[in-house]
């Protein structure tokens, strides 16, 4: 501290309080007037202090009302009202922004200023004003969520960003909303509502023709050829008795043919895959009547799923069928076929096939064994998970990887390849998939986040466990509050894509 001039003149003494007083904003002018007169300065100081204290309460001490009004610091209007409304305003501003962006994209304009003008100064469309009003779904009942979704989905041109935002907090059960939302989120249905009929019809037709081409029974195809042959040969006259006519097909197709081009041969080769698929399907969700058991409903469902998986295996000879694909298909098929809309429910097979292909297109590399160690393979994804964990909770990461040597591939392999369908019960899976499909980060990224969140949520148990207990815990993940899990996942710190942790 500097040695100040101890000989403080009286003037300085007078000055200092004033300087202090000038800390109060807006009163400088008055102080300058009063500097010369010490007495007045002190009085003035007293006045100012009083003013500062009262804030509108001690009205008696104020001499002049006008003076009082000018001295009062303006209090922001917001503080007087409840916090709910202010948050609501923020959300509505956000929604407006999303609507603006959307509308800007719609109109093809780049400047959002014009859009802003349009929204603020012209009539706001009823739908957006309604959605601004119905805020914070958790506070309101589920009825309003359904309404909200109905509003979003009834638009002529669906705002996908909005749908994503709404879906990530959970889709309502029933009413076929989930089925439609999933189809939109996976890109199966186009955003423009007019094109739905056309797209659906086209896709279903395509599926039917694919089925015919690839899944046909060889004897049925020979039957068809035979009919043509008979028609062409004009075999009207036939012998009632006598030797049956023989057709030489030594170079044609027969059931015992071993030639690659033979449809019989292909059929028997596929029979192996078909057998494996059948076995897996028998074991899909054994607790659900929809999938297991001997009722004709479950048999039909299994047959439909069998067709989908077999067709996928045939169309992708590089991956064929891998055990577990049935689990990824199950929720999709369930949601689509329990759609109350009749037409959609009967075509659930075709729709599920297309959506299954779309969903698997991201993670298809995980199933290919040759790509295991490459940059798109499962090992790379596992190390990304480890990196994410390290970025978010270094202590837990250290404990798992280094102390316990619990490698991600021991537990997370199944989590990632099967999109968490084996870790939770069915309704939880559906809820998690709502968030996965609607995440703005993309399915795979969100999946890694959820996996990381799963680890964080059992952190205390993991930190206190050794190799065996931890592995056991992670391979039989305990039941937890799904909404909490998804909340944690949403709030994770992202890590850069290329930060690979040496495993």
């Amino acid at each position, binding site marked *: 501290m500097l040695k100040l001039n101890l000989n403080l003149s009286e003037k300085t003494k007078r000055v200092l309080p004033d300087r202090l007083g000038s800390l109060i904003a807006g009163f400088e002018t008055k102080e300058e007037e009063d500097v010369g007169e010490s007495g007045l300065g002190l009085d003035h100081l007293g006045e100012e202090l009083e003013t500062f204290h009262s804030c509108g309460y001690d009205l008696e001490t104020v001499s002049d009302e006008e003076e009082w009004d000018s001295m009062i610091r303006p209090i922001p209007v917001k503080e007087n009202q409840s916090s709910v409304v202010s948050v609501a305003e923020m959300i509505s501003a956000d929604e407006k922004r999303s609507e603006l962006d959307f509308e800007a994209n719609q109109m093809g304009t780049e400047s959002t200023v014009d859009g802003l003008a349009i929204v603020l100064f012209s009539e706001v469309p009823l739908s957006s004003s309604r959605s601004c009003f119905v805020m914070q779904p958790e506070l309101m009942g589920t009825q309003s969520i359904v309404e909200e979704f109905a509003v979003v989905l009834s638009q002529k041109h669906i705002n996908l960003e909005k749908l994503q935002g709404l879906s990530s907090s959970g889709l309502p059960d029933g009413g076929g909303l989930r089925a439609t939302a999933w189809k939109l989120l996976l890109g199966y249905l186009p955003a423009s509502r007019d094109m739905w009929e056309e797209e659906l019809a086209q896709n279903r037709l395509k599926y039917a023709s694919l089925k015919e081409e690839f899944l046909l*029974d*060889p*004897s*049925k195809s*020979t*039957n068809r050829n*035979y009919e043509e042959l008979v028609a062409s040969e004009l*075999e009207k006259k*036939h*012998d*009632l*008795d*006598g*030797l*049956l*006519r*023989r*057709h*030489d*097909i*030594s170079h*044609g197709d*027969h*059931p*015992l043919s*071993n030639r690659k081009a033979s449809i019989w041969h292909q059929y*028997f080769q596929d*029979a192996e895959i078909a057998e494996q698929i059948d076995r897996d399907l028998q074991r899909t969700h054994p607790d659900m009547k929809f999938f297991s058991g001997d009722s004709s409903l479950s048999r039909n469902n299994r047959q439909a799923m069998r067709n989908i998986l077999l067709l996928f295996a045939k169309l992708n000879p590089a991956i064929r069928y891998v055990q577990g694909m049935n689990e990824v298909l199950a929720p999709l098929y369930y949601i689509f076929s329990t759609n109350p809309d009749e037409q959609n429910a009967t075509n659930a097979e075709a729709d599920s096939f297309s959506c299954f292909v779309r969903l698997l297109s991201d993670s298809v590399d995980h199933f290919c064994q040759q790509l295991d160690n490459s940059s798109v393979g499962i090992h790379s994804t596992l190390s990304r998970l480890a990196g994410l964990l390290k970025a978010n909770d270094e202590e837990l990461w250290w404990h798992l990887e280094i102390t316990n040597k619990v490698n991600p591939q021991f537990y997370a392999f199944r989590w990632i390849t099967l999109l968490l369908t084996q870790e939770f019960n069915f309704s939880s899976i559906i809820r998690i998939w709502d968030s996965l499909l609607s995440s703005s980060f993309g399915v795979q990224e969100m999946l890694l986040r959820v996996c990381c969140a799963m680890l964080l949520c059992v952190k205390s148990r993991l930190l206190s466990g050794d190799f065996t207990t931890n592995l056991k815990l992670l391979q039989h993940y305990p039941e937890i509050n799904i909404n909490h899990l998804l909340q944690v996942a949403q709030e994770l710190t992202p890590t850069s894509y290329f930060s690979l942790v040496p495993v």
Partner: protein
Amino acid sequence: MVLVLALGDLHIPHRASDLPAKFKSMLVPGKIQHIICTGNLCNKEVHDYLKSLCPDMHITRGEYDEDARYPETKTLTIGQFKLGLCHGHQVIPWGDLDSLAMLQRQLDVDILVTGHTHQFKAYKHEGGVVINPGSATGAFSSITYDVNPSFVLMDIDALRVVVYVYELIDGEVKVDKIDFKKAATSHSSH
């Protein structure tokens, strides 16, 4: 789509040592659902080999079979068709159409499969179909000259049967195809 293999008259080990190699390479397990064997295998090894191709095997007794427990005739239903099985040495004159038709009426079957003549035949007679798969090994027969190894594979699909005939002629496998339908009413087959 049910695949049924019909063969017989192998006469192993007396008149032949084994099935022709080309036939053996074609007959692999997993493809065939049923085997019907007319008889005269003759020993247990052949029985076991056929059993390995398909667990569902039906066999009737031929006069040289070592296992005396096989029945004389057998009937079974596959799809919409009733099949009858008999070796054929019991039906005299051997290979006579009318006598076989009598047997068919007795068994009340749509398709009658018999052997003994070591010669492939497939014909329609009096409302039914008689199929003789011949000898799978081409074993010697006192009633037939120039025996070619042959067997039959039937593809039964609802009301329609496709018969694939496999014959070994001059060392080459020749495949023939025969179609016929069973009509709900009588004789509008092929």
